[in-house]
C-alpha cells in the first residue's frame, strides 16, 4: 500500500503508481504492523488508504481524498467480498482500516479483524456482556478506536476494553459505569494522545451522563466530565427549583437522574486541544414539567479540554427538550468556513436545524431549518430558539426520530456542501406523563406517537415492506451550502434512511437507506450514478480505503459487510 508522501508520488503517474503499489503489495505483511501514533491520528486525512477513526479523522467529515472511483466509472463497481455475521440483528458499526487490517464490531460486542483485500478473518474477540444489562435501543455497537497496536471498545454493559490488535487478546478491562443502573456504551471511543475517551448511554433510564478519559496503557480513569452538572458546578442553576405549589409532579432532585447520554463519537481540534461531543436527551425525555429549567448540558454540544475534561464552552440546541431531540450527531469540523477564516463546528441536529458554531468560543454563527420545523420559530441574537410548543394532540415537526438522527453526515471541502440523511414531512404527537425515578427502570415520562393518517389502525411499517408510503414522511439526502445552510439539492427516497454518508475527492457521495439500496450520487448535483440492492437496511456510514492501487468502498447492510471496487 502507498503510504504518506509516497502516495503523492505514486499518484503522480499511473504507470509509476502501478509499479509502486504492486511492490508495496508484496510488502503488505511487513507494513501491516505499523504503529498508529497519536500524530498519525491527527493527520489521518493525509493517509486516505486507511480509515483510522470512526468518522475518518478528528474532523469527522467522512470525506476521503481517494479519487480512483469517479462519477464516470462508478457504474463499473463490482462486489469484491462479503463478510456475514452469524449473530442476528442489524449492525451500526463503522469499520476502521489500519495498515492492511480492517476491524469491525458485530453483535453483541465482538471485534473482528479482517483482511480488507479478501474479507478473510484474522481473529475474533468475543465478549459476552452482562445478561442483566439495561440498554436502550438495541444491542448496538458502532465500532472501535485504535492507538499503537491496541484497539478500544465500549460495551453494552458499560465496560471499556483494550484489545491487542494483532492477536485479539484482551489487554485490560475497566468498568466505566454500572450497567444494572441503566448505563451502557454504544459508540466508538475516541483516542486523543495517551487517553481514550468514552461516554455513557442510558438517558431513557435516568442515568447521570458523563464523558471520561482513560489511560490507554492501564485503563485508569484520568478525568470525568458530568454532562449533568452537580451542585456548585456551573450550569447546575439550569436545574431550577420546583415551584412551591404545583398541581403537577415536580422532582426536586431531577438533576440526579437527568440523562445526558453520549451516543456518538466526538471530534478533536488539535490546535485548540478541545474535544467536542454531543450530549443526548434529558431524563425524563418528555415529562418536562417535573424538571424545570434549561437542563444543561442535555441536548447540547460541549467543548472540553482534552487533557483535563474541563468545559470551555457549550451551546444548547434545544433548551428544556421535551421531544427527545438529543444532540446525537458527530460534530463535523470545518476549517475556514465559507472562506471567512473562521473554524467552525457544523451540526445538523435532530431538532431539524443546521448550525455553525465557532470552534474556539462556541459563538453562534448560523441556525437554519433543513426540514419542516414547528417546535420553534426563530433564534435570538445569541442563538437561543424561540420555542413554539404545539397544542396537545397536534403534530410537532420534526417527529420523534428527528429531521436527522445519529446517522453520520459528511462535509466535502471540495464542494463546500454539507450532506445530511434526513427524514422529511415527518411529525409526532407527544403525550407526556409524570414518572418517578426508579433505578434501572424506564424513565421516559410518556411517549410520542406517529402522526398517522389513520388513527386506530395498526402501526405502519417500513422496510422490507413499506406500508408507510407517502403518508408519514420519507427519507432524503439533503445537500446544504455549509456556509449559508441553503439547500442546494435533494435526493428523495421513498422509505426513510438511517444511513451515514461518505464523500470523496472525486465528487462522489455514497449512502444507503432502509430499502437496502447502496447508492452513489454526484456530490455536486445529487444525480444518481449507481445503485445496488444489498437486501437489508443500511444502518451505518460507508467508508473507503485503498489496498495497493485499488480503492475500495465498504458498507454494512443488515448483518453483513459488503466491499466494492472497480475490476
Amino acid at each position, binding site marked *: 500500500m502507498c503510504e504518506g508522501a509516497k502516495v503523492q508520488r505514486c499518484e503522480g503517474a499511473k504507470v509509476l503508481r502501478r509499479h509502486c503499489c504492486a511492490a508495496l503489495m508484496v510488502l503488505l505483511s511487513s507494513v501491516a504492523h505499523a504503529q498508529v501514533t497519536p500524530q498519525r491520528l491527527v493527520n489521518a486525512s493525509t493517509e486516505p488508504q486507511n480509515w483510522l477513526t470512526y468518522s475518518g479523522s478528528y474532523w469527522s467529515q467522512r470525506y476521503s481524498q481517494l479519487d480512483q472511483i469517479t462519477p464516470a466509472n462508478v457504474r463499473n463497481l463490482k462486489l469484491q467480498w462479503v463478510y456475514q455475521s452469524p449473530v442476528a440483528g442489524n449492525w451500526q458499526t463503522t469499520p476502521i482500516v489500519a495498515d492492511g487490517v480492517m476491524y469491525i464490531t458485530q453483535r453483541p460486542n465482538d471485534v473482528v479483524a479482517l483482511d480488507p483485500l479478501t474479507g478473510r478473518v484474522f481473529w475474533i474477540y468475543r465478549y459476552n456482556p452482562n445478561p442483566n444489562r439495561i440498554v436502550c435501543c438495541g444491542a448496538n455497537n458502532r465500532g472501535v478506536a485504535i492507538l499503537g497496536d491496541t484497539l478500544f471498545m465500549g460495551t453494552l454493559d458499560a465496560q471499556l476494553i483494550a484489545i491487542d490488535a494483532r492477536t485479539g487478546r484482551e489487554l485490560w478491562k475497566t468498568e466505566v459505569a454500572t450497567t444494572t443502573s441503566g448505563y451502557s456504551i454504544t459508540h466508538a471511543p475516541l483516542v486523543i494522545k495517551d487517553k481514550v475517551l468514552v461516554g455513557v448511554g442510558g438517558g431513557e433510564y435516568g442515568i447521570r451522563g458523563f464523558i471520561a478519559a482513560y489511560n490507554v496503557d492501564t485503563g485508569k480513569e484520568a478525568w470525568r466530565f458530568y454532562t449533568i452538572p452537580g451542585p456548585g458546578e456551573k450550569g447546575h442553576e439550569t436545574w431550577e427549583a420546583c415551584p412551591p405549589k404545583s398541581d403537577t409532579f415536580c422532582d426536586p432532585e431531577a438533576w440526579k437522574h437527568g440523562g445526558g447520554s453520549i451516543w456518538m463519537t466526538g471530534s478533536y481540534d488539535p490546535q485548540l486541544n478541545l474535544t467536542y461531543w454531543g450530549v443526548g436527551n434529558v431524563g425524563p425525555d418528555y415529562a418536562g414539567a417535573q424538571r424545570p429549567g434549561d437542563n444543561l448540558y442535555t441536548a447540547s454540544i460541549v467543548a472540553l479540554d482534552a487533557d483535563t475534561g474541563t468545559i470551555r464552552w457549550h451551546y444548547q440546541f434545544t433548551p428544556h427538550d421535551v421531544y427527545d431531540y438529543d444532540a446525537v450527531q458527530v460534530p463535523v469540523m470545518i476549517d475556514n468556513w465559507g472562506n471567512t477564516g473562521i473554524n467552525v463546528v457544523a451540526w445538523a441536529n435532530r431538532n431539524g436545524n443546521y448550525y455553525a458554531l465557532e470552534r474556539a468560543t462556541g459563538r453562534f454563527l448560523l441556525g437554519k431549518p433543513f426540514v419542516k420545523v414547528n417546535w420553534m420559530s426563530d433564534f435570538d441574537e445569541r442563538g437561543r430558539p424561540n420555542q413554539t410548543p404545539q397544542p396537545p394532540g397536534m403534530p410537532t415537526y420534526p417527529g420523534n426520530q428527528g429531521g436527522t438522527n445519529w446517522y453520520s453526515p459528511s462535509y466535502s471541502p471540495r464542494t463546500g456542501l454539507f450532506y445530511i440523511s434526513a427524514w422529511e414531512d415527518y411529525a409526532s404527537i407527544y*403525550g407526556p*406523563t*409524570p*414518572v418517578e425515578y426508579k433505578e434501572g427502570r424506564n424513565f421516559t415520562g*410518556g*411517549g410520542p406517537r406517529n402522526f398517522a*393518517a*389513520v*388513527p*386506530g*389502525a*395498526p402501526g*405502519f411499517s417500513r*422496510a*422490507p*415492506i*413499506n*406500508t*408507510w*408510503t*407517502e*403518508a*408519514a414522511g420519507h427519507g432524503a439526502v439533503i445537500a446544504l451550502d455549509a456556509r449559508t445552510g441553503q439547500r442546494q439539492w435533494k435526493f*428523495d*427516497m*421513498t*422509505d426513510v434512511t438511517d444511513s451515514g454518508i461518505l464523500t470523496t475527492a472525486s465528487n462522489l457521495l455514497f449512502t444507503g*437507506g432502509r*430499502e437496502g*439500496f447502496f447508492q452513489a450520487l454526484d456530490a455536486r448535483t445529487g444525480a444518481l450514478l449507481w*445503485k445496488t440492492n444489498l437486501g437489508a437496511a443500511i444502518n451505518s456510514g460507508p467508508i473507503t480505503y485503498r489496498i495497493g492501487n485499488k480503492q475500495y468502498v465498504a458498507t454494512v447492510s443488515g448483518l453483513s459487510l459488503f466491499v466494492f471496487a472497480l475490476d
Partner: protein
Amino acid sequence: MKRVLATAVLSVMAAVFGVRAASAQATAQLHDAQYPDVDIVYGANLYAARCVTCHGAQGDAIGGVNLRSGKFRNASTDNELARFIRAGSPAAGMPPFALDNAEMAGITAYLRNMNTFDTASVKTGDPARGRAIFEGKGGCAACHRVGRAGSRVAPNLSDIGSQRSPGSMQRSLVDPSSQMMPINRPVRLVRKDGTVVNGRRLNEDTYSIQVIDDKERLHSIVKADLREFTISRTSPMPSYKDTLNSTEMADLLGYLLSLKGQ
C-alpha cells in the same frame, strides 16, 4: 361490484352502536373522546370473558386494586397499560394475556371508561348474521377475501379482527376513505408504452412499486418505466351508512371482529 360489497360491510358495526346508542347518550360526554364507544363495548365483553373472574364486575375484587379508579399502579399511559397486561404480574398471580391489537384497544378503552360505562346496555352483533351480510347483502366478498373465499382486489380481511380496533372498523364502514391505510390507496400506473395498471400497492421503494391489480395480478414496476403514477386518497369502497340498518351494521361488525386469522 365494489359498491355492492361496500354496502354490505357497513351493517355490522352500526348494530353495536345503534343498540348502545340510547343508553349511552347519558354517559357519552363523560367518556374520553379518544376511545370510540365501539371499542369500549368490545372491551367490556372481553372484560366479562377474561378479567371478571379475578377483578370482579366492579373492578375491585382484588384488595388494593380498583380498576374503576382510572389509576393504575404500574402504568400511566395506554402503552404501559398494554405492556403490563401482556406481561402479567406473576408475583401477584396475574398471568400474561396475549391480546391482539383489537382486543388491547378494546380492553384499554373499557378500563379507561369503566367507571361510567353501563355494561347492561351492551349488545353486540351476531357474527353468524354478520357473515351472511358479508357474503350476501353487503357484497363484501366481491372485493375482500376471508380465508379462501372472496376477491383479492381489496385488502384481505382474514385477520382484520385482530388488527383493527372496533372503532376503526366502524368508521371504515361509514366513511371508508377516512380509514384507508396509505398502502391501500388506489394507484394508476401508466407505462411509457401506454399500458395501464390499476390496483393497490403491496410495497414501494425509491425505484420500484409492487402492485396487485384489479385482475388480481401481481406487478413489479420500475418507476423509471412510468410516464404516470397517480395515487388516489379516495377509497373505491362505498359508505354503508344508508344501506345497512343499525342491526345489520352491528352484526357485520361482530363478524369482522371474529376474524382472527388461522
